[in-house]
């Protein structure tokens, strides 16, 4: 027995106008300063006819426990019936946790787990509007929050924080900066590949992962020369949301476990952090899921596909301008060698390793981390 879960996905040109059909009386928008300054926030607000709209527009990248608690405090007595997460994964994840905190102020911050019913969405509608194409947060029931006290990224999850609606309007992502585009697309590709070989994989996640790999790799190949193209942006945007739905209905794997730990220690963007490990993880896992890797490789864009998945992923990373070794990510080797034990410890505590197709020991993690520097 297992489940397939998904929000209602509204996509394509003018998808934002769907907001006009939703009955909203008091709306809380959770976003970041860049979205606020860029005019995207106003563009979204133009479709909201609610008499009461409040905005939290200072969510930072990789939001922390304290920042989210601070936002909840500032919301004060405002009682939204609708919460909108607008932005990249950080804003959408923050909105998920704010939804939890507003719904269940009686619970502890870290009680947000999938292991028990929390009764979160009784009084709220929850809408996610991504402005990047990668995290898939709009279609997932996971949220990553930085726990600065513990120096880790807390992987929080509950089916109850999955958005009711995911609105994918290509105009939201067409102006994405190049660095954001390459990091988020790499994150999305990693979601799809890890979902496809997870021990929790299933026919629903399989079909989404295959299509996601095709859309993401083909879309990125085409966007390279035409970054504003709406059709290509829409391909990557939809592919990323499919990849989000794939891993949300299956599981992430070792590349995410390593990436979360690496990102927490070295403060590198999430997409770079998971992508840099993906080729080594594929090499490590290959003995357990070689046929599955061959299958998913066949869905790579012909522009980027190589003879096996590991080489195809390397070709994708090079094409996107992302590093394959830690030195190339601007990390000092001595510092890396000193702190990689912390990465290994955090990785071993990640939920990402339980769904990995090959069993992972601490020495396996040490080996992969050691292989991340130029010989």
């Amino acid at each position, binding site marked *: *027995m*297992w*489940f397939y879960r998904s929000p209602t996905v509204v996509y394509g040109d003018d998808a934002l106008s769907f907001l006009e059909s939703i009955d909203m009386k008091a709306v809380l928008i959770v976003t970041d300063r860049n979205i606020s300054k860029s005019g995207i926030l106003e563009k979204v607000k133009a479709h909201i006819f609610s008499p009461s709209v409040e905005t939290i527009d200072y969510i930072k990248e990789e939001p922390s426990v304290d920042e989210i608690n601070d936002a909840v405090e500032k919301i004060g007595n405002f009682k939204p019936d609708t919460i909108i997460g607008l932005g990249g994964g950080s804003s959408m994840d923050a909105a998920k946790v704010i939804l939890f905190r507003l719904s269940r102020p009686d619970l*502890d911050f*870290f*009680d947000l*787990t*999938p*292991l*028990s019913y929390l009764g979160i969405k009784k009084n709220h509608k929850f809408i996610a509007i991504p402005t990047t194409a990668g995290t898939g947060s709009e279609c997932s029931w996971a949220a990553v929050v930085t726990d600065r006290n513990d120096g880790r990224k*807390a*992987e929080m999850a509950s089916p109850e924080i999955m958005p009711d609606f995911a609105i994918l309007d290509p105009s939201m992502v067409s102006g994405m900066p190049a660095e954001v585009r390459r990091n988020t697309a790499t994150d999305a590709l990693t979601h799809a590949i890890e979902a496809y070989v997870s*021990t*929790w994989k299933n026919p629903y996640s399989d079909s989404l992962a295959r299509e996601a790999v095709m859309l993401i790799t083909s879309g990125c190949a085409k966007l390279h020369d035409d970054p504003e193209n709406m059709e290509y942006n829409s391909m990557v945007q939809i592919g990323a949301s499919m990849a989000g739905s794939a891993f949300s209905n299956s599981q992430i794997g070792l590349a995410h476990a390593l990436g979360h730990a690496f990102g927490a220690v070295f403060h590198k963007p999430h997409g770079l952090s998971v992508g840099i490990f993906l080729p080594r993880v594929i090499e490590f896992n290959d003995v357990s899921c070689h046929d599955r890797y061959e299958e998913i490789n066949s869905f790579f864009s012909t522009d980027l596909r190589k003879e096996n998945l590991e080489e195809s992923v390397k070709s994708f990373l090079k094409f996107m301008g992302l590093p394959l070794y830690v030195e190339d990510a601007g990390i000092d080797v001595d510092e890396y060698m000193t702190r990689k034990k912390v990465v290994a410890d955090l990785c*071993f*505590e990640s*939920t990402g*390793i*339980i769904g990995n197709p090959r*069993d*992972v*020991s*601490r020495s396996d993690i040490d080996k992969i981390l050691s292989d991340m520097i130029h010989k």
Partner: protein
Amino acid sequence: MVKFPSKEWMDLYVERLKSNDIYKDSARDWEGDITFVCRADGPLKNDIAMWLDLYHGECRDARYFQNASDAPKSAFRYIGPFGNWVKLIQGQIDPLQGVLTGKFKLEGPMMKIMRYTKAAKELVRTASKIDTEF
């Protein structure tokens, strides 16, 4: 073959757990006792409990209770009917998916468990390696 549930099965389980290096490694910071509760179902006529004192990758003590209500309070309780325990031990149910699908109930600080999912998996894998009779 050892019959499940029984004290003999639990003793063998603890012995196997003690020699499971992957469990030791993944639970090396774990502190907290756990009670496995097997609810009456099918051939099992009353609820039984197995209490394990788990600390830093070791099982320091274990007790079997023919009547689950006699078991001491513990930090965590993993509860399910006999039929689901059979499937869990036979590897047909993943321990975490078992909770997510309502086949098992977990009581205790959930976030702590989420950081030790690897250890939880090893706890179950150890059980699945015992030649068990149901």
